[in-house]
């Protein structure tokens, strides 16, 4: 199941692990991404915490935690090569995986149809 936030993050739930990235629409709006800062593995995050910094050629943007939980894995590849986010935002260039406290938190987010309407 894939869900989308109004902040243009995508969330993919598998058991109690949510993989989080930014949407293709978001990377397009940001432009060429040159820097990504991710939280450390083991960090406890709360919804709306600013946990990721993305810098494009234009400006810096924050990404907020979409759920409560614990960071269990981060994608080192996009730290080394931030341009991967421009190339495959909704695939290989995921940002982090979080062990979610309460999977029902995802219910509030949009499905693909609703997100497409938002960004149309």
């Amino acid at each position: 199941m894939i869900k989308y936030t109004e902040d243009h993050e995508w969330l993919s739930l598998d058991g109690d692990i949510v993989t989080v990235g930014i949407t293709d629409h978001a990377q397009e709006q940001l432009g060429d991404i040159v820097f990504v800062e991710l939280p450390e593995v083991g960090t406890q995050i709360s919804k709306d915490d600013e946990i990721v910094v993305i810098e494009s050629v234009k400006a810096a943007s924050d990404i907020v935690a979409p759920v409560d939980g614990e960071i269990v894995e981060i994608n080192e590849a996009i730290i080394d090569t931030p341009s991967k986010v421009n190339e495959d935002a909704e695939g290989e260039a995921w940002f982090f995986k979080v062990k979610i406290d309460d999977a029902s938190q995802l219910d509030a987010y949009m499905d693909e149809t609703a997100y497409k309407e938002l960004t149309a």
Partner: protein
Amino acid sequence: MAQDLLKTPLHGLHLELGARMVPFAGYEMPVQYAMGVMKEHLHTRAAAGLFDVSHMGQVLLTGADPSVDLERLVPQSITGLKPSRQRYAFFTNESGGIEDDIMVARREDHLYVVVNAACKAADIALMRAGLQESELVEITDRALLALQGPAAEAALSRIVPVAPMAFMEVGIFPSDFGELWISRSGYTGEDGFEISVPADHAEGFARALLDMEEVAPIGLGARDSLRLEAGLCLYGNDIDTTTDPVQASLTWAIQKTRRPGGAREGGFPGDSIILPKISDADDQEDRRRVGILPEGRAPMREHVQLFENEKDETPIGVVTSGAFGPTVGHPISMGYVPARLSAPGTRIWGEVRGKRMAAEIVSLPFRPSTYKR
């Protein structure tokens, strides 16, 4: 988009090319095209980029000898500027600060001056007030384009014979697009040309260039990262009315004849402040514009505060331009630090999002320029 924004003669072409338009110095200008800032930057360094810089001001100074007049307003040697040559110059104020940086070319019996868009009205007022013998004619029926990059010469040569021109040489060329005023210069660190073209021929001229394999349209976004890699100042960011030429590390642009002991020493606004600094630049607390290379990958953008030590509370300087340098492959910045910390190799700290990050003072430019001397 606000209705009162001005449009250049290439506005329609920008829209047709899919440009993202932004307000800039009162004009609606292309910040990027479909290619995106990074690829536009790299394309300019690899082939040739076409920039619309028609928002900049073009002015002619005519009269018996306008160079004598203009020399009262700038610390450069204008009377010593040879025919068909162009020179980087700047207007100074009584406090020694810089009112604008400009290009001045000597053409036969007059001077051709190009000024920054945001300063255009003020510069014209400043010149009208300061010129005693000469007349100022503002050129409003011409566009200004820049063609920059290693393939610029080959591309433009298909239209006019520019290959023999040297860096900072100017010439007037008849062409299918009317009379072209061309200088071999630019603001990217690349070999290239700036071309003034009659407004009603501007689109045809731009299309002729864009039809060529090597040429792509480039927006203001890449123009900014290109000039930063080349170590060139953006007026309003890196230099302004409060920075004097010595602080701005632009002493090289003041010819010896206008310096202490020179034949035409002084005689420009702020000379009593600027000249003593040139002969005795020993105030180690006075600030200097420097290149700054962050050690990490996070860009240090404008307004980032700089510190001498990691834990210091009081900043010693500030970043005035900062971005990712696509050709350098690393974030790069320019900013001001005290002279005592301005030597290349000095380690300083910048505060980014509340964190102190190390950076090194480096000499400019970040990437060697490729001008055809």
